[in-house]
């Protein structure tokens, strides 16, 4: 759910999230913000601090008394003190405008993953067709065959896997890599992708990563 009173920005934000496979809604009635949020029970709230009638921080405080819905504070005030305050009120993350859309998406993904694993078991294994992908060890398994991935290949593969059947831009992959402190350049990304392709080919899946010219890659 997006709580942001600037219409244009909230529309663009909605578009961004919709394009990336999230279901989004926006808060309509700022006078009864708390009730509307609680009735709708969103998985995550993007909360702007400067909203009409009620300050975002106050809203967060009163929300925390009733619910544990993950909240990412979105604000144009870039200061350590405000961040510390928001976190102490119970925000899960804090992002300052103007945010890089790729980073915003990463943060949303991270918060959702973190809060979800709180309920259930920690996800250590992803599956792709009949391949098992062990994230912690960085190993792809098929029956008794095992293939080891480097850290970069792992980040790329898990990102592609999480966005299966969707086009993933090079920008997004780059952001995901850099977000994991792997500061690779354009060439290295190309190299890593072709290595990943070779490894998948070895294990019996050639041509699963398709290049879409001028757009990016897609995992079929």
């Amino acid at each position, binding site marked *: 759910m997006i709580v942001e009173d600037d219409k244009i*920005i909230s529309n*663009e934000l909605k578009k*961004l999230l919709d394009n990336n496979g999230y279901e989004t809604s926006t808060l309509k009635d700022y006078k009864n913000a708390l009730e509307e949020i609680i009735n709708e029970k969103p998985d995550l709230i993007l909360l702007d601090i*400067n909203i009409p009638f009620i300050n975002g921080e106050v809203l967060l405080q009163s929300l925390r008394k009733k619910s544990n819905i993950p909240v990412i504070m979105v604000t144009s005030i870039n*200061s*350590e003190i405000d961040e510390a305050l928001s976190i102490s009120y119970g925000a899960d993350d804090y992002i300052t*405008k*103007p945010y890089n859309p790729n980073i915003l998406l990463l943060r949303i993904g991270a918060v959702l993953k973190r809060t979800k694993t709180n309920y259930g078991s920690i996800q250590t294994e992803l599956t792709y067709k009949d391949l098992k992908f062990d994230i912690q060890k960085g190993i792809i398994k098929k029956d008794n065959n095992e293939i080891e991935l480097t850290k970069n290949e792992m980040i790329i593969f898990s990102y592609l896997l999480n966005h299966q059947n969707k086009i993933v831009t090079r920008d997004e992959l780059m952001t995901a890599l850099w977000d994991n402190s792997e500061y690779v350049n354009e060439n290295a990304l190309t190299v890593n992708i072709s290595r990943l392709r070779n490894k998948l080919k070895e294990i019996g899946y050639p041509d699963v990563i398709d290049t879409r010219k001028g757009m990016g890659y897609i995992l079929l």
Partner: protein
Amino acid sequence: MKFSKYIKDNLYKLIIFAICYIINLLIFWAFKVDKSVIISSSFLYIICFLLILLIPYFRKRKFYTDLLENIRVLDKSYLVLETLMKPEFYEGELLYQALYEINKSMNENVRLIEEHLQDFKEYIEMWIHEVKIPLSTLVLMSNNHKEQFDKKTKLQLKRLENYVDQVLYYARSENAEKDYLIKEIDLSKVIKNVGLKNMDELLENKIDYIVGNVKYKVLTDSKWLEFILGQIVNNSIKYKRDIDNSYIKISVKDEDNKTILIIEDNGIGIKDSDLKQVFDKSFTGENGRSISKSTGMGLFIAKNMCEKLGHKIDIESKYNEYTKVLIKFAKNKYYDVLK
């Protein structure tokens, strides 16, 4: 207060006295007064005159010497009035009164200007927050509608963002109030954020962002440090050399009492003659003038902020080879004990 000058100033008294004395002598002589009377009255005359001349000198001397000496000694000489006793002679009272009035009106003036400045700063901060809304809208739009906005637009937006940030942190770092928060933060996180923020430009300019082992903790304000590091990285991008293997290398040197963050690039470097001034306000130097339009504010603000946070920032460079910026963080042993 110099005696000779005082005498010079009171020369007219001496002249009047001398004339009177001579007339008096003439009168005495005309009436054929006895010599002893002349001598004794002359004596009295001179004593009286000396007293009239000297008493005011000693009365005034203390006040004026204190005034001048205190003005010289005080680092804020406008506060001199507070250090003085109210004088007991009329001229001094007048001067004291005048100084008092001048002080009052100056204080009033200073207060007005301070208020103006404060208002202005508040407005600037507010304006920055306002301007970030359309800016973030544009960023989002450029991402959502890639067909209408190309990469160039994105890079221009990035520049715009950097300039807006510069204004914000300038306003903040000049503020007397404390609006930063020092706590223990992870350097690798700050370095990552700066990298992500400048990723597009680094990739576009084919500059490798090489990060060594930076898993160290330092005491600082992470937002401020992010800004400072951002300015340095921005400069490295701006002043890169036209070579194939451009890089920005970030590393940490851990010493006994301090942690040093080192940012090194193989850009065009800075000439020796310019090196000392790079942290000066509005200094652009040869690079700033010849390569790109530079405001000369980035490093100045960065240095200001470092001083506020208690870090030391140094720069080393060799023209046409490298530039190296070092930020030194003190380790606080006392803090370690408390943890």
